Structures are given as C-alpha cells and as structure tokens.
C-alpha cells in the first residue's frame, strides 16, 4: 500500500481537498439550491430562465472589461468606444459579445416569460417567482436602454433626450424625477445613466434574481455552451457598428431606436399624448402581466383550459410583434413632408391592434368551446414542463467521434486565430463561436457515454 505511485497519491490528496471544500460549502447558502445536471438532451423551454441568467453573467464579465476603457463624458464617450472598437486588442470582440448578449438576454427573457405564461406556471405557489420575473424583465430592458445610450452616437443622444422628457411628462413626480436625472445638463445625464447601467440596476437585478431562482436549477452545460457560441457567431455575422458620432452643431436625421423600443416608438408616432404612449401604455402592459396570477386562479394549467389567460397572452404577443415591426417602418419617400413620413395612421394602427386582440380571444374561446370537447383522448393531466429527447451515440463510435470533433475544434481554433491576426476580428468571432458549439457537442457525447457506462 505504501508503494502507491505519486500520481495516485496526488489524486487522493485532491479528493481530500474536494471533500473538505464540499463539507464547508454545506454551511453556505449554495446548498439551498439543488443543481440538476440533465443526463439527456432536454427541451430548453424548461430552463430558458437559466439561459437568460447565463447571458446576464456574460454581460457582467464583458461589461466589467469595457469599463476599463469607457469614459462617461459628453466629449470623450464616443472616442473611448471607438478606441475599444478599433484600437484595443480584443476590444471589438468584447464589445460585440456585450451588445449581442444584451439582445439575447432581452429575447430570452421575453421568450421565457411567454413560455411560462402559456404553461400556466405562475400558479402552483410560483406567484412570487412570477412577479420578480416580470420586474426583472422590465429592468432588463431599462438596463439595455441605459447601455446603448452610453455610446453617444446620434441614436444614443436622441434616446437619452426622449427618456428624460418622458420622465418629465409623468404627472406630479415627473419633473422632480427628471431634474434628478438631468442635473445641471447633458453631461450629468450621461454619468447618471452610467451609474444606473453599471451599478444600480445590475445590483437590483442580482437581488431579484436570488428571489427569482427556484430551488431546483437545471444546469444544462451543453445548452449553455451553445447559447454562448451562438451569441458570438451572431456577433461575428452582424458586428455592431459605432453609429454616427453625435455632433452638437449638426442636429441628427431620422433615427430609429433599438428593436426592443420600436414598439414604443410606433405608439408615440401615432400622435397620441406622449405620457399615454410612452409611459402609461407600457406600464399597463406590465401591470397586466403582474396581476395575471391573481386573475387566473383556477387549478387548470393547460393553455386550452384557460381561454382568458391564453387569449390575453396571444393578444399581448401579437401586439408586441405588430408594434415592434411597425416601429421600424418609415416611409422611404424623401420628397414627402417629414411629418407625413413619420406619422403612423392611428386608425390603421389601433385597428390592427384591436383586430389581433379580437382574433386572439376568438381563437382561444372558439377552441375551448368547440374543439376541446371533441378531442376524446384529451387528458386532464398537465404535461411535464421538461421534455426529453433521445439522441444517443453508440458505445464504440463514441470515442472516435470525440477525437474527430477535437481535431475539428483544433483546426477551427487555428482558423480563428489566423482571422484575428489578419485583422478580421468579426470573422474570427464566427470561428470562436463554432469552437464553443463543438465543445457543447463533446459535452453531450461525454454525458451520454457516462450514462451508457451506468446502464
């Protein structure tokens, strides 16, 4: 026994340290969470929240790195972003990942919310989780908005102005809040937004996330790697630009906001009062989502059994899509009067929204009344939230495929490096992302191999 090899002894020592650490960790809050590492491919619908959290972490890391060079000042903000984008090594990649992760986070958060909504997951004692989730979604959009305002291009300046004036349009407290935001002028707004973006909002989000986390967390490592890889690949295909630098002596031209705000932009362009369009309507939408657990209180979870909630959800989703797409549309004819080009016909616009709402409720109630009773084999049982797919690779080919993939990954890494060295940081990102996706596949093969051994 004393003649154990050095490596054996080292391994034992490591195992001891691991045990020691695990023992001590039992004293911490971490042990209140149960991490579930799935052994098969799961539908990501069951853990979209976890994926959203992963993008939050990516944003935290890249954002902290960007803070090394960014300068929140009216005169040098744009230059500092240009420096990051063009001169600093990996700056362009970091900024691109930050930007695309923010889009991914908003998209995943909305997707997550609607999936949970239609599955009726805000019931069964999940009300607190649901409400913190809705608040987190709103904060995510505000966080993204304060972020793209920091670049000080034309789009940022107009967005800052609109945000500040919308704040001032709130009755009673609005002008007081706006004066806090504005301080002694525009340079103060910028630094205030910066404080919100890098510290205040993320801190509140982190606190809410701790409440929002359920006891069981699905940690699907392959899917996390795929999401990270996809963000980087999209960043490589559509790299984010700097935008036109804002020059205070040249008022900007027509500027469309980021995609998560074009819905609001469309409402504002219909000519209704700015407070109603920019503050009241979005608040109303949020309030409806906040109180839905207290309206839809029946025991049924299936969407077909809850026609009112489902109708509301489809109507909400339809309205979000219509307004978001409509916000992008601007009559391209430059000979027309600007007021005419930007105006959205309120009858057409609100008519479309009314029609989609009626159609949504018509569909769900129609389905509930006529179709549902005819489905004989319809079972009351609510399906499990987590679907499993089988995608197994047989024993012998397992090792071979891992080796093949490793080879491919090696080549891809080299291609990425070569792209980066030759000055194509954007193209390099596609390879970097591809490498992450191969890593995801290998992780999956590994876990199915381990499962085979057990079976």
């Amino acid at each position, binding site marked *: 026994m004393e003649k154990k090899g050095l490596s054996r002894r080292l391994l034992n020592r490591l195992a001891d340290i691991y045990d020691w650490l695990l023992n001590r960790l039992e004293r911490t809050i971490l042990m209140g969470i149960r991490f579930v590492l799935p052994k098969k491919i799961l539908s990501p619908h069951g853990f979209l929240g976890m994926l959203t959290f992963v993008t939050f972490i990516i944003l935290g890391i890249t954002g902290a790195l960007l803070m090394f060079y960014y300068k929140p000042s009216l005169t040098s903000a744009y230059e500092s972003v240009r420096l990051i984008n063009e001169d600093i090594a990996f700056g362009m990649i970091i900024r691109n990942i930050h930007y695309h992760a923010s889009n991914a986070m908003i998209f995943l958060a909305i997707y997550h919310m609607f999936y949970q909504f239609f599955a009726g997951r805000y019931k069964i004692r999940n009300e607190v989780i649901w409400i913190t989730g809705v608040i987190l979604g709103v904060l995510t959009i505000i966080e993204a908005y304060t972020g793209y305002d920091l670049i000080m291009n034309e789009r940022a300046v107009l967005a800052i102005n609109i945000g500040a004036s919308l704040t001032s349009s709130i009755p009673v407290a609005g002008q007081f809040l706006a004066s806090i935001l504005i301080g002694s002028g525009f340079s103060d707004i910028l630094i205030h937004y910066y404080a919100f973006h890098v510290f205040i909002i993320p801190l509140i989000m982190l606190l809410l996330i701790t409440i929002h986390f359920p006891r069981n967390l699905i940690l699907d490592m392959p899917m996390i790697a795929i999401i990270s890889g996809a963000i980087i690949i999209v960043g490589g295909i559509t790299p984010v630009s700097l935008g036109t630098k804002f020059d205070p*002596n040249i008022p900007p031209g027509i500027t469309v906001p980021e995609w998560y705000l074009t819905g609001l932009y469309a409402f504002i362009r219909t000519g209704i009062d700015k407070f109603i369009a920019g503050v009241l309507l979005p608040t109303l939408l949020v309030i409806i989502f906040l109180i839905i657990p207290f309206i839809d209180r029946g025991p049924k979870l299936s969407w077909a059994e809850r026609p009112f909630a489902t109708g509301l959800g489809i109507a909400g989703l339809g309205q979000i899509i219509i307004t978001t797409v409509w916000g992008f549309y601007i009559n391209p004819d430059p000979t027309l*009067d600007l007021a005419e080009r930007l105006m959205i016909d309120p009858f057409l616009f609100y008519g479309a929204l009314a029609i989609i709402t009626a159609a949504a409720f018509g569909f769900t109630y129609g389905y509930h009344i006529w179709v549902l009773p005819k489905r004989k084999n319809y079972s009351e049982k609510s399906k499990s939230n987590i679907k499993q797919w089988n995608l197994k690779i047989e024993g012998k080919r397992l090792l071979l495929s891992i080796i093949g993939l490793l080879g491919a990954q090696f080549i891809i890494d080299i291609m990425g490096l070569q792209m980066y060295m030759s000055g194509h940081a954007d193209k390099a990102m596609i390879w970097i992302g591809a490498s992450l996706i191969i890593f995801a596949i290998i992780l999956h093969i590994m876990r199915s191999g381990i499962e085979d051994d057990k079976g």
Partner: protein
Amino acid sequence: MKDIYFYNIYLYHKGFRDVKNNLFLSVYSLKYSFKVAIKYSLFGFKTGLILVDLHESRCLIKFRCKTDMKISRRDALKSLAALSGTLALTPFLPIGDFLIQSTTFNIQRQRIANIKDIPFNSRLIFTYPITGNTERDNDPFRKFVLIRLPNGQFKAYSTVCLHLWCLVDYKTERQQIECPCHGSIYDPNTGIAIRGPAALQPNKTLPEVKLEIDEKGDIYANGIIGVIGYGKEGSK
C-alpha cells in the same frame, strides 16, 4: 401561550362563531397540536395573535385581540428605542437634495455672428450662454439655431423639440424647422409647431432667444424667452 389569557380574544374565523366556547377549545388544541403562536404587534401594542402549525407550515386560525391600552414597562422601553431610532434617521431626511443639481443659466449678452456671414435662407447653430467649459458647451440643451429667413429677418430658437426633446433643425429646402424623431414641424417666423405631435400639445412655441443687432451688423443674443424643452409659454 399565556398571552391568550391576558387578552379579550375575538375570533374572526368563519368556522368559529361561538367565541366563548371555542376559545377553550382553541387553547386546548393549541397545547397539543400546534407548536407556535406568534404575536402581532404594532408600535409595541399587542394587536393580534396568529397560530401556526409547524408541521404544515401554514397559518391555521387568525385571532384579533383587543388592543391592551395599558402600557407595560416593556412596551414603554420599546417605544423609547423606536423614538431614538427615528431621531437618529431624521438628519438624513434632506438627503434628497443630494440628488438634484440645478441648472444655472447665466443670461449674458453674447456675440453670435455678423449679418454679413449669414446669407438669406440659412441657419447657424450656436451655443448660448457660452461657459468656456467644453462639457457644458457641448450640451444639446444649450444649442440654439439662428435662422436668417428668406425675407432677411433674423430669428433664434432653442433646438430642443417640445415633443420629446429631440433636436430640431432649420431645413432650407422646405424653409421650416423639422424634428427628425416624430416629425414635428415648426414655423420659422414664429417658432410655433404647425404639424406633428408637438402641434397637438398645449405648449407648442419654441423658446426664443432675444436678438440685438448693433450698427456694425454684429448679432447679439441677450436672454431667452421661455423654458428649454417646455416652450415659450411653458413653465417648469
């Protein structure tokens, strides 16, 4: 547990109509089935009692107790501590002022340009009042547009649109002031919004800069009529 005997208890739970008889029952069952009784207290006065079954971790019966107006020594001490806490926090009340730094616009007479430099139907963006601090002077809220109308007259307005504070500009092709965000159009002669969302608002006249032209043809700005972002008729 003793608290139950101290206070006159009224039961508001549906299942317990007969207060007197059930009181004993509840206390009895309290002894044997339920583990915890938590007191509500409001400012040190007992106002209620709640029974919690630890095994099921849910609330079973809610009692409301009549407030005991007799202040015990313990309650008095608690109230004094609460008073001290309030006094300790009072100095922080005006902290809200920390958040606000007000804008100072020193109205000054300032040369903008000479009439010879500005042709008919053209415009010049200028900063007013100039402070010498680049951060301040680049502020879009301090930018104004000096317009020479086709008839030769001079006008100067704030560039902050009255709708949602985007930045307007004088377009020489169409001889009007336009906002790129939602398409508000202003009349350059008066600064009044004639089309677009700003025209639908109660405050729709752009703040105007008072202009003075001396015998050498130098144009001076001397004061602003109205409030930036809120209009000529607007007030903060």
